Structures are given as structure tokens and as C-alpha cells.
């Protein structure tokens, strides 16, 4: 019986991220979430495999006392896929960065989502290449000044949520590195989700992109700039808890409850991550300032067929039907002739 604590998931390796790096908090949340997941699902520690690509966040497997695979740049998702298909009994956690998963590894990322393979992907999004010391990434804002864009970038960033849901992802959550409790919640929900779970963690790189998410983390404005979505709860936010998201027949709108257009609390949308309505989930994932708050929490969590189950079931089905049970049978199947 799994009776594990966060200490069981801490390796003896020294954590070498910069002091103040957002990755520390995400690691801590994971080490706190997994004991709860283990209890809920009766998983032992040897069942976990932590996989990563290349980048600062990809050092994470070394800090987890589990089976781990530190892969190559961009390919974590492909490695995770192979592990899961080989042994669906294992539970896979993957750490990857915005450059890692969305630039060099973009292809594997979207295809894992399309296949809905049951892996849990933590996407550390600090909007910068940290380990190579400060170049813009596919999530850097338009105009971002970095070492390779001294005059500002001239390309739009990806919104990872749009990408995931565009590929018909079955699970997408977003959070901030500092939200320890919310992150534990999200990770637990991801673990319980059967299919490809993507958790975008907006992390702060103190060295090369400090304050990239300040508009979302600054206590003075945070409540007005973010909304935490929870199933069954109304989409209400703001310092005074008086703003709400409503659907006006065409699109989602932010209203001040009781003021604009006569919208009351009854008109405010109630979150349902399990709804089939991918359009609404996409609209929520797309929201950004200054007109909208950024949505945090589990935005989408729906059931669908998974790739690993499909592969396993097909093998079982064919095994049960086929007359070929061993290689000797195979070699003697079809057209053969005897020489005497």
C-alpha cells in the first residue's frame, strides 16, 4: 500500500536551479502532489517515470527519486510515448520548457496530444531560453527584447493553451509557479485524467526574463488580472469579487456584476472542465489582458480514447483471434513447399 510522503520523491541530488527560479516551486508542488496521487490510485513509487528534454526545467528528473530519463532537446514527448506504449502500467510525468516543447519539440508535442497518450506534461513556460542564456522563445511576447532580438521580436508567440486545444487536447490546465496549492490540485487532476494532460506553468526566470508574468503575480493587480476556474464555481474574479465572465450570445465578456447591461450573478458562467464544449474552453484558454483576466486552473478535462489503451487492446484482440501463436507458426504460415 502506497504510504508515501514528499520526502520519498526527493532525490539526494543538489538542486541547481538559480535561487528564486520558479522551477523550485513547481518541483515542490509535484513532490507534494505525488504522495496524494499515490494514495488515491494505490501507486507505488517504482511505478513513476519522470522524463524530460533539455533546458533548465528538464533537470527535474535528477531531483526526483523515481525512475527518470533526461532526454535530448525537444524529444521528451517522444521518449515518454515510447515508455508508455511499452508499459502502460507505468505513470509518466514529463518536464519540458517552452522552447523545448513548442519550438524544437513542437511536432512531438502536438502529436502526443492528438494521439491522447496517457502522459502528464508539465510545460514550464518562462517565455525565454534560460539555459542558453536569454534568447527569445516561441512564447516570448511580440516585440520582446532578448539577446537574439535586440530590436524586439517581429513574430507572434504561441499561446500553449490554444495549441493544445487546437490539437483537440483532452486536458489543459494553467497556473503560476508560486501557486503551490493550486498546482497540487492541478497535478492531482492531471494524474487522475486518462489521456494526455498538459499543465502550463508560468514560471519566472529571475536571470533572463525576470517579471515576465508580473502582471499575473503582483499582489496589487493579481486578483484583477487572473481568474481561477474551478468546476461548478461561477467565473467570478477581481479584488472585490465583483467581476464576472458572461456569454453575450456571441462571445465571452467581462462584466461588473449588477452594473453593466444589467448582468446579475445569475448570468455569470459556471465552469465545467468536463463539458464537450471545446469552443468555450478555447475562449477561456485564449483570454489575456488587458481586456480579459488570464484563466488559471483546469480549463479542460474530458474523456476520450487513449493511444496506449488502443495499442494494448488491439494486440490482445489480434492475439485472441490469430492462429499464429509463436514464431514457428509464423515461419510455416502461407505458401511453403517440401523438399524431400
Amino acid at each position, binding site marked *: 500500500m502506497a504510504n508515501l510522503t514528499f520526502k520519498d520523491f526527493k*532525490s539526494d*541530488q543538489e538542486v541547481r536551479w538559480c535561487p528564486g527560479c520558479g522551477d523550485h516551486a513547481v518541483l515542490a508542488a509535484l513532490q507534494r502532489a505525488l504522495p496524494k496521487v499515490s494514495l488515491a490510485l494505490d501507486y*507505488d*513509487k*517504482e*511505478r513513476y*517515470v519522470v*522524463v524530460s528534454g*533539455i533546458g533548465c526545467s528538464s533537470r527535474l*528528473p*535528477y531531483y526526483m*527519486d*523515481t*525512475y*527518470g*530519463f*533526461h*532526454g*535530448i532537446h525537444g*524529444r521528451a514527448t*517522444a*521518449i*515518454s*510515448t*515510447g*515508455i*508508455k*506504449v*511499452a*508499459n502502460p*502500467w*507505468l505513470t509518466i510525468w514529463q518536464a519540458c520548457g517552452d522552447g523545448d516543447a513548442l519550438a524544437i519539440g513542437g*511536432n*512531438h508535442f502536438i*502529436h502526443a496530444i492528438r494521439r491522447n497518450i496517457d502522459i502528464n506534461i508539465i510545460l514550464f513556460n518562462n517565455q525565454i531560453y534560460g539555459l542558453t542564456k536569454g534568447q527569445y522563445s516561441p512564447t516570448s511576447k511580440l516585440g520582446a527584447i532578448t539577446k537574439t532580438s535586440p530590436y524586439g521580436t517581429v513574430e507572434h508567440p504561441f499561446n500553449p493553451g490554444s495549441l493544445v486545444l487546437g490539437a483537440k487536447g483532452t486536458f489543459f490546465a494553467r497556473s503560476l509557479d508560486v501557486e503551490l496549492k493550486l498546482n497540487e490540485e492541478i497535478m492531482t487532476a492531471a494524474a487522475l485524467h486518462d489521456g494526455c494532460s498538459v499543465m502550463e506553468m508560468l514560471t519566472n526566470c529571475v536571470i533572463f526574463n525576470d517579471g515576465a508574468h508580473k502582471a499575473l503575480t503582483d499582489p496589487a493587480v493579481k486578483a484583477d488580472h487572473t481568474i481561477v476556474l474551478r468546476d461548478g464555481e461561477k467565473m467570478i474574479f477581481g479584488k472585490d469579487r465583483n467581476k464576472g465572465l458572461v456569454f453575450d450570445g456571441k462571445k465571452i465578456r467581462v462584466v461588473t456584476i449588477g452594473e453593466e447591461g444589467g448582468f446579475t450573478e445569475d448570468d455569470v458562467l459556471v465552469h465545467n472542465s468536463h463539458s464537450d464544449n471545446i469552443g468555450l474552453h478555447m475562449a477561456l484558454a485564449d483570454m489575456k489582458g488587458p481586456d480579459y483576466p488570464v484563466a488559471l486552473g483546469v480549463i479542460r478535462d474530458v474523456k476520450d480514447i487513449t493511444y496506449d489503451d488502443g*495499442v494494448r487492446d*488491439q*494486440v490482445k484482440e*489480434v*492475439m485472441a*483471434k*490469430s492462429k*499464429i*501463436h*509463436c*514464431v*514457428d507458426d*509464423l*515461419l*510455416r504460415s*502461407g*505458401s*511453403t*513447399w*517440401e*523438399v*524431400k
Partner: protein
Amino acid sequence: MSAIYGNGLSTFPDYPAEIRAPHGTVSGVSGFQVHIGSTKVNTPGDFCDLLVAMNPAALKANAKWCKPTAMILVDDDAFNEAGMKKAGFKTENPFEELKVEDRTIIVAPITTLTQESLKDSGMDNKAILKCKNMFTLGMACYIYSRPLEYIYTYLENKFAKKHPEVIEPNKKVLNDGYNYAANIQAIANTYTCEPVKAQKPGLYRNITGNQAVAWGLLAASEKSGLPLFCGSYPITPATGILEELAIHKSLGCKTLQAEDEIAGICTAIGASFAGDLAVTTTSGPGLSLKSEALGLAVMTELPLVVVDVQRGGPSTGLPTKTEQSDLDQALYGRNGECPLVVMAAHSPANCFDAAFNAAKIALEHMTPVILLSEGFLGNGSEPWRIPSMADYPAIKPPFVTGVLAEGERFEPFKRDPETFVRRWAIPGQKGFEHRVGGLEKNHSGVLSSDPANHELMVRERAEKVARVARDIPALEVDGPASGNLLVVGWGGTYGHIKSAVDEIGGVSYAHFDYINPLPANTGEVFAAFKKILVCELNSGQFADYLRARFPEFEFIKCNKVQGQPFLVNELTEAIKKEM
């Protein structure tokens, strides 16, 4: 049919890269070579006794391969003005224009006769026209005194389930073709080709190289007790392996058609980490894309089989043609000091043993293995005496056993002092939690950038691969064990070189199935000869490799880089020149 009849047989398709290449043009010609014999046949043959040309372009493309005594059979209906023009003939007599007018030429209205034969079959004209080849096969069967019963059985088995309605029409048109050839009296000579007398008794089947690779891997899966995982991306001419494995889920095999070549190898590496027998299959350009991940497999010391069915390169090159030009890439195409095992298959049927042995070495020595096949082998076929799995050895990977003592940590890169092989712990095994990855580590599996540790690990990884030589068979010499000249080959040139040395007689010949490491007695074998002629379908990659290892010997290169196999007479000339 000839295989079942007991003849020696070798076949080879030669086709353009385009799926629907312009019909009737010389560049759009597809061909299929069949070589039968009353003795064992080593190659699909160089020059032919019978050329069947279904249109003027086919005649133009292949007339040069006709022996002086050859017979040429053409479909008169296709030799009309339009067909002649498309093929680029300038005169009205294509045979004179190609200087083959002195051959025995059979001009038969094959299309018309096929239509006539099947007019009451109820088939539509399109389906009827597809039967032209059966009419022609019937004619060929008459010429070579082949019994039609084997083909009848084949048709019955092939179409019984899906298209039983085409069985009788095909039999009829085959028979009509046979009778037509017998009646026209244009065919003065018919030939008989007796079954091979010295054939070893047993159960036989025909097999292509790609099929044999797939089956050899399944055999290794069974012998190791590990499920087979194949992560691959479709690429000519290797796709047949993935397709074949996808059929055999009944043997527990999982195939993953990846989103790209890199995902193919990376899913395989993941599957290997999780304890499967992991494989990725590809051709030259795909191997280029897999280079970085191959380095990861070398660094993590995980078993992995990479099958490269070589084609003409560089870049997209000649996708449907054969070549041996990926050898350098297989040996060296990675960053860092990155040795791995490289081996080669030497005939379509040998692909079975080669794939089995590649998997055995990978699993027992914890290393990636590149198995080089070739388009010529992958698509070529030959009869194969079916082995019994009881005669194949067990495969025993170095799994960790038992439990660790309290407080003891599993050290993933601690090595066996004899073989330098590390032990394999599979996720799910309690207490053996460990991390692998592309960063340099020490024996305990802890990250290390210590200069001395790096050099030690580089040396140990290389030594591990070098010591594979202890497990591979010694190099054998066919012919005298010493002398003036040793002919050397590797991979799919075996049949042609063997035919050439047999034809000349008294020539010493050594063929390499293992390239890195080389068989332990290689230097000893070489030392008994004055010079060594290395024959290969590239610009001399193996010769250069041997020269770097054995600078004391004289190597002479015999190369061909035309996307085509050697001709036996090209080899006999090259060998005689050096004798």
C-alpha cells in the same frame, strides 16, 4: 511457382520513384527480374534469356540486357504509333534501332488475345486488361515447360476470400496464353529447368529481405521473452519492415507509426528504457535524422536495433535504387566519441539471422546496433529453408536480480569486468530507481563533468563495443586460405561476388557480416594474402575503413555507384585484372 517446383530462384524489382510515372515513357518503366536455375541461384541475374516487353518503352529500357541468344516477347498491340513515339523511337523498326533484330522475336497481340479470351467472363474491360500479364505468364510457362498447376493453386489461395470471381478468368487466360504459345510455332525451342538436385530436404518458403528482417526481430523477441516495439516513420525502401511487423500483433508486437524519423527512434529508446526489445527502421536520410538520438542511446547504454535499408544517396538521392553508401554514416555519423555495433545482411533470407543477431547483441551488450540492409535485399526475394526456433539460442539480457541491501543504491553504469556491459533495471522494479540521460555520468549514475571521469567513460563505452568481437563468428575464407589475392565484400553484394568467384574458380573470398567490431581474426586472414580487393556499391567506404585499421596491407577498390547491383561480369573482370 519455380520455387515450389524446386528451382533455384532469385528475384529483384526495379522501379522508378514515382508512383504513377508517365506511362509508356522510358523513365517510367518498371521491371521485375526473375532468375531460375537447376542449381542454387545467387543473384537475380545480369543478362536475360527472355525479355518480356509490354510496351515499346520497356523494350527500349531493357534491350541492352538481352543475351545474344535471348528471346524477346512483346505485346504487338502496344507497339502502335503513339507507343513508339512516347518511347522516343525514330524509325519504324524498334528491334533494328536497338540492334537486337537478330534475337528470337515473338510479336504477339497480347492485349487483343486477352480481351478475346475473357470476353464472356463478365469482367469489365479495365479488369480484363489487368489479366494481360497472366496471358504472358502462360506463354512464358510454355517456353520454360512450367506446369500450370502451381499457379492455379496460388490463384485459388490468393483470391479465395476477397475476389473468388477472378480465379476462373485468371486460370483461363493463363491457359489460353500457354496454348497460344504452343500453337503459333514461332517458338522453335522450349526449355526445361530441372529442380535443384542437391537441395537440403526440409520445408521451404520464399521470403523478401524486409519480411525476413521483421521475422528475425520477432524471433529475437520470442527468444528474449521481451515484447517487440517498433517505432518507425515510412520511408522507401524500408517501409516493408514496419508494414510486416504491423501485421504480427498476434506475437505481441507493438508498432508505432511515428510523426517523424526522430520520434521513431525516440519512442524506441523510451520503449527500451521500459524493457521492450526496441527497434526503429529507416533508410539513409532517416538515419541522418536519427543521429542525435543514436548518441543518446549510446550514452544511456540502452539496447536498440536500428535497421537501415540503404538506397542511393546523398539527400533524397535514388529512393528506389540500391546502394551501400551509408556505411560511413553508420560508423561515424554522430557527435562525440560514439561507437556502436554495425553489421550487415548479405542476402534476402539472411536478413532473418542478421536481424536476430543484431537484437541478440543489442540486448546482451546493452548497446545500439545498426543493421545495414539494402534496397536490393529488402525488395529482393529468394527461397529459404525454414528453420526451427529450437535451433536458435536464448537471448539473455543483463537484468538486475535480487533486491538491494538497506541503504544500497543501484549504480546503473557499473560494468561487468569481462564484457564492460552495464546492468539493466526496468522501471517498475522496486528499489532500483535511477536516472539515465544524455549528460555524462559516473558509474553511480550521478552527473559528472570531471575530466578524468569523462575520458574513462568514453574509453569504457568503446571497449564495451570492441568486446562484442568475442561473441561474433570468425571470418571465413571461401577458397584457398592464402595466396596472391583475397576478394572482400560486405552486405548485399554477396550473391554477385560469390557467383563471380565461383565462375573464375580458385579465388579466395571473404565476406563480412560484422563491420564494427570486425571479426577478431580479420588481421590474421588478411596477412595470408598479398593484396585485398574490396568490392562495394559506394566509392570505397569499407576499403577506407579497413585501410585505417590495417595500414600494413594493400587494399584495392572495386566500386560501383549507379544505384544498381554489380553485374557478375563486372566483378569477374575486376578480379581477373588483379589475379
